[in-house]
């Protein structure tokens, strides 16, 4: 019956006003601004746009296939085999091969790698390690293990959802990769304006010059007051003190006294505007489930007791990242330590190498408790030994690390972005990085 229909009506598309919101549209340009260098560090969004890992984490933190279509653990997690997805090409057209993957991983990890050896076997990559690595698939999703290869000009090429397309007028331009193995991204182009201060980012957002800007945790409340639309991650940035265990701080009792003297509540309430999660454990509570077993309470009397009779010489506290909130946190910690009888001074910016205590942040990229503990231990240069596969083994390993008092967890902080009304479905990965390829622009027809 329908076959008989012949179109005779003339459509008046603009007659009915605003339309409903529908599935995500394709097309358009997404503009975002960042403080740092988009190619550097775990926050480097350009790397996430242009490169893929062997695995990836979904929003819930579950490991999913990426450049590896499947994998298998062998020999009690001492050997892992990852099969490389077929028909994938780097942006310059070079096919992705197991050899290229093995070479990329070898070059990206030269020290404290989660494997002893990585090599290609046919269309698969084999990792071997002296110790069992049950969390290797989760670890391989980290930004540092993204796969790339060097083209003839010496530039790194990835397989990611976007290709670098130039740097005109201080704006990095990335265009959609139509042949991406996970499907073409929704937007045609992403423009990244690097090295913009938060103030400038917010100003640009106010005049409609950008779609995505960064919101530091201490400014989340302010962003809410300004009615900005916010997407925030679970607290995944660990603020911690890293304490030397040599020289004046060789005595573990002194280090314990420092840990007991710090007032986490004040840091959270005053500086980070209650946007963080107070922690005395290395893993966030949502990940471990046992965070409450580590006491966050400040105990000045006990700190003074432990310190008495062993007053160390002048100590220096430095901040690894020189932003204002970190600097303020360091100043408050110095006051806390002085209240416990320590002679502490704040090192000038850039004085990290000579400091006895360093205030720093570790960016957690995984949602697997074991992989997360490994990641934190590696980043903070701690030795961790997890004997067993159950959660109780992870707890014991974490407890052992904390008992050295060379690392003192303080707060877990979220990552957040403000987005314009044009942006739809911008979500954050489990590590807080924005999933640009899955977002769309609303005004695109």
């Amino acid at each position: 019956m329908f076959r008989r229909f012949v179109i005779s009506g003339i459509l008046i598309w603009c007659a009915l006003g605003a339309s409903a919101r529908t599935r995500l549209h394709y097309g358009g340009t997404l503009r975002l601004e960042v403080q740092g260098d988009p190619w550097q560090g775990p926050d480097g969004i350009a790397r996430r746009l242009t490169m893929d890992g062997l695995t990836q984490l979904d929003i819930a933190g579950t490991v999913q296939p990426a450049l590896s279509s499947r994998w298998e653990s062998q020999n009690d997690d001492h050997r892992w085999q990852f099969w490389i997805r077929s028909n994938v090409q780097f942006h310059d057209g070079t096919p992705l091969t197991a050899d290229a993957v093995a070479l990329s991983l070898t070059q990206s990890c030269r020290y404290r790698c989660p494997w002893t050896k990585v090599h290609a076997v046919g269309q698969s990559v084999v990792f071997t390690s002296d110790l069992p690595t049950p969390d290797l698939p989760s670890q391989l999703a980290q930004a540092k293990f993204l796969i790339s290869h060097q083209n003839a000009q010496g530039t790194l090429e990835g397989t990611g959802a976007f290709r670098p397309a130039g740097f005109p007028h201080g704006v990095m331009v990335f265009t959609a990769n139509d042949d991406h193995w996970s499907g073409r991204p929704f937007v045609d182009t992403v423009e990244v304006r690097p090295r913009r201060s938060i103030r400038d980012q917010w100003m640009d957002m106010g005049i409609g010059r950008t779609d995505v800007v960064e919101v530091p945790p201490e400014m989340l409340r302010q962003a809410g007051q300004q009615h900005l639309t916010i997407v925030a991650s679970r607290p995944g940035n660990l603020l911690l003190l890293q304490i030397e265990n040599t020289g004046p701080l060789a005595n573990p009792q002194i280090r314990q006294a420092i840990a007991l003297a710090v007032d986490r509540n004040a840091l959270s309430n005053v500086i980070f505007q209650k946007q963080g999660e107070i922690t005395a454990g290395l893993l966030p509570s949502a990940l471990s489930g046992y965070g409450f077993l580590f006491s966050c309470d400040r105990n000045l009397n006990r700190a003074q007791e432990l310190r008495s009779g062993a007053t160390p010489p002048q100590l220096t506290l430095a901040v690894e990242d020189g932003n204002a909130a970190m600097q303020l946190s360091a100043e408050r910690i110095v006051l806390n330590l002085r209240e416990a009888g320590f002679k502490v001074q704040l090192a000038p910016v850039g004085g990290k190498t000579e400091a006895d205590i360093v205030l720093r942040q570790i960016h957690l990229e995984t949602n697997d408790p074991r992989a997360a503990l490994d990641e934190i231990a590696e980043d903070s240069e701690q030795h961790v030994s997890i004997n067993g596969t159950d959660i109780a083994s992870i707890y014991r390993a974490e407890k052992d690390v904390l008992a050295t008092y060379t690392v003192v967890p303080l707060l877990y902080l979220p990552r957040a972005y403000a987005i314009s009304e044009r942006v739809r479905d911008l979500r954050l990965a489990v590590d807080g990085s924005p999933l640009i390829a899955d977002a769309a622009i609303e005004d695109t027809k």
Partner: protein
Amino acid sequence: MQRPRYNPRKPMISVRRLLRIALAVGCIGAVFARAAAAADRTQPVADLARQIAAFAGPGPAKLTMRNLSSLNAEEVPFIRKMLERDLRGYGIHVSDTDGATVIRVTLSENATGGLWVAEVQEGTEVHVAMIPVSLGPATHTQTAAGITLRKSLVWQQKEPVLDTITLQSGDSRRMFVLEPRKIVSYTIASDTWTKEQEFPITHSRPFPRDLRGRLLEEQGHLFDAYLPGVLCTGTQSENSLTVSCTDTDDPWPLSGPAVPQKAFYNPTRNYFTGLLAPGFATQLPPFYDSTVLPRPNGVAMLFNGIDGKIIMIENNTMKLVAGVRDWGSDLVSIRSGCGSGTQVLVSGSGAAPMDSVRAYEIPGHEAEPVSPPLGLDGQVMALWPSENGASATLVVHTETEQSQHYEVYRVSALCN
């Protein structure tokens, strides 16, 4: 396929009776569910008691228990009672008085599920025991007035689901679940679906993001699975199932065999191109979904354009439908027997984390809601007609901070 039928007068009473019966069955079910949930805790409680006993010797002990997890608070006293009973088996007698042994139990949870932690303190020494626990599935209920949409859970899993189909062959029933990478067959025994086989979906081109796919029962073989640029065919010969997939641009069926209209799907996007088969003189604009609507003078077709506008083609004319501001991308018509006999089920905006489905009728060219929105705990991913045309298959993606899963519902309408 059942023939369309009109709403008979008498069955209204039967429907009320049915509702009462359903309510009673629901209550009984809830009681059994609670009992089953309590039974599920027996093993973890026993394990925890065993671990506690390994640290605490026989004698009196003070027990405290707190719940930091999403576990129903009503369960906590039962768990405590079970734990006290199990501890007695090890000679540990729980009392309220302060003793040498203090046992602090925390019902917590982490990224993978529940975690019960016991701190056993004797003097200054504290030992810790931990037991991972399944928190169990959440329960879903839904009530409404007017025409009532009812959803019944058919299936749920962590991996994405595009569509499901249940096929009866003789005495055996099979369910096929279409996932982005594979088709999985399940057989039923004692009301439990058991995985039978997995069939990988082979394709040479990458699938688009926002992947859509549809399973359809076919004459001559079991089913066809339509995916962007790919057609998979499921066949059964004697006792073996086979699924073969080929790259193809064949058009997808838009409706049942009564109106054999097909449309071409864009293999790199999430919508139909607008080109129909059999075709017309003019190509339609791209659309997300389409459905057939019985009308007094035949049938009309609704097309949900990618710009959110709804086109109705009826009696050789194409018109815009008004009153569709709240419509999302997915629509399907079901023969409910209520009201005009057929309603269009439409997804909500799809933008909010909590989506909905609502029934509409279109007497002229303006859509009128005829049911309250059926609230959902997540976002509508697919809404396809079911095999009999009287209900729809709804796929909902729910996600929490800890997990995400896909739920497949059968949605039908009840006449009030």
